[in-house]
């Protein structure tokens, strides 16, 4: 009986169903196609190749914008991975054998966080490859500097991995709190794909709302990464407000994860398994 064994067990569970590779494929297709399309148009725009009076984007802002698509758009994937780590166990009643083998429930949750961190790194690398690969190719093809030699770029990619890990943690907490798999998945999709993007867009028109909205997890995540389509002043005319410092964004995301995890442990994880 040890944490090592519980971590091994959680890893086996994670990779013995098809969820992990299906989500990875969807992540790659979603992020890579968007990165390729946006990469093509942004690069064309910055070189003035687009017909008509299309605004000319400054080429040096493009690589961070495109590369950060993996988090700006793709953060729903680590969030879903984390959520499913818990809700599938509840849905298929496998919490019973899990807790029979490891009655120390905090250890099971700890093992899920450790495995979740590994998954965050894994999906982070997959997501970054999907955003950087196609968009850098598009930039390079049209002669725009890819900035792949800059340490700033690589530091940003590193922060994206951190964001992925934190999103898995938030997902685990959300899964444990919501419990019902369908409600949790739909809730995650609605929040990440509609509510927060709309809130962050509308904020442009409301005085002072930016100070609140920048603490939303998606905005904090973008702040941690340091670049995002949503914060791009070139595109929205300064719409995203002024984001938090990257470290402050990271701390906000970490705090969200920590608070949700504590609530999940107290009010859900210790409940009767019937």
């Amino acid at each position, binding site marked *: 009986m040890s944490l090592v064994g519980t971590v091994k067990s959680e890893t086996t569970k994670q990779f*013995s169903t098809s969820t992990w590779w299906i989500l990875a494929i969807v992540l790659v297709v979603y992020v890579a196609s968007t990165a390729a399309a946006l990469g093509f148009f942004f690069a064309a725009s910055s070189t003035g190749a687009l017909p008509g009076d299309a605004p000319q984007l400054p080429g040096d802002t493009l690589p961070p914008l495109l590369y950060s698509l993996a988090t700006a758009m793709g953060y729903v994937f680590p969030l879903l991975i984390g959520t499913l780590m818990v809700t599938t166990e509840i849905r298929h009643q496998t919490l019973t054998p899990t807790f029979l083998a490891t009655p120390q429930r905090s250890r099971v949750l700890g093992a899920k966080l450790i495995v979740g961190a590994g998954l965050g790194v894994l999906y982070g690398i997959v997501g970054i490859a999907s955003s950087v690969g196609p968009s850098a190719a598009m930039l390079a093809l049209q002669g725009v500097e890819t900035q792949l030699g800059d340490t700033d770029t690589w530091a940003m990619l590193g922060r994206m991995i951190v964001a992925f890990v934190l999103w898995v943690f938030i997902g685990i907490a959300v899964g444990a709190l919501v419990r019902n798999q369908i409600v949790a998945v739909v809730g995650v999709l609605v929040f990440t794909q509609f509510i927060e993007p709309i809130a962050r867009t509308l904020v442009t028109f409301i005085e002072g709302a930016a100070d609140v909205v920048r603490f939303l997890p998606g905005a904090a995540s973008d702040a941690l990464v340091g670049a995002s389509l949503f914060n791009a002043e070139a595109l929205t005319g300064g719409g995203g407000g002024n984001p938090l410092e990257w470290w402050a964004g990271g701390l906000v995301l970490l705090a969200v994860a920590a608070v949700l995890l504590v609530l999940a442990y107290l009010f859900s994880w210790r409940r*009767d398994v019937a």
Partner: protein
Amino acid sequence: MPDGQTLEFSGLTKRFGPLTAVDRFTARVEPGLVTGFLGPNGAGKTTTMRMLLGLVRATDGSATVGGTPYAQLRHPLQSVGAALEASSFHPGRSAAAHLTALAQASDVPIRRVDETLALVGLSDAAGRKVGGYSLGMRQRLGLAAALLGDPGVLVLDEPTNGLDPEGIRWMRDLLRALAREGRTVFVSSHLLSEVQQTVDSLLVIARGRLVFQGTIDELVDPTEYATVVDAPDRAGLTAALTAAGVSAEVLRAGLRVDAADPADIGRIAASAGIALSLLQRQGPSLEQVFLQLADGTRVHASAFGGESAAGAESAPPVEPTQEGDAR
């Protein structure tokens, strides 16, 4: 193999809001025996088992394995193997992967995965997704999970559900063999007939309370049995019985002697030289006794719930039925 441990329930109580699912349940389950845990659906069997296994938190009282609460066992799967319901599997995961994850979590050697799958006859299906399994196969997989750590205690909730007759016989033989090895085997059912031939000892629970604890033989009080006897020479038989000091009640089909052993009555008749046309033991069927225990019309002294045994004094209305064959 770890030794069988005694399971001890002491004042175990579970309330869900206003509903008391398990009410001051106190009992012991001994090693080396198959102990049946019987009760109608909704009587509290599953909740009791889940409290024993630390899955459901008791409102009051305790349940221990060899004196230790389940959650504090050093090696839970090596001490207690449990199969609770046949649905605790991810349908998209193979049986082998399911057991591997359990083995890793509890430091059970991985080779046990193949061993237990072979033991329950699932070797050929080990790599298939559980979603394609029949109910009987899931029961077997549940049993494999229970046996994974080679535990001294087995806790099985309705393990024969969904098994075909051959599977039921296989399960019975296995449970008996496990108990013979000295393990504690605690198995629930809502059908007496299902466990009747398997169990050495019986706990009956109804409406959350223990209503009987003992062996099957103790289920029916010997005084509840009667002997029905008849002879072509009924007058001679009556005289012989009266001479032997046995009082008989005249029925349409013979004479009914309360609380008598058919062998005694036969001996009385034989020594009087009377040929019998009927000699039969009558008593309540076990199933009837079980149903009466379950609905509260019968109260057994073994369930020492004296403080709350309402209506315990009223004699149970026992309808005689044929039990056993004519001797």
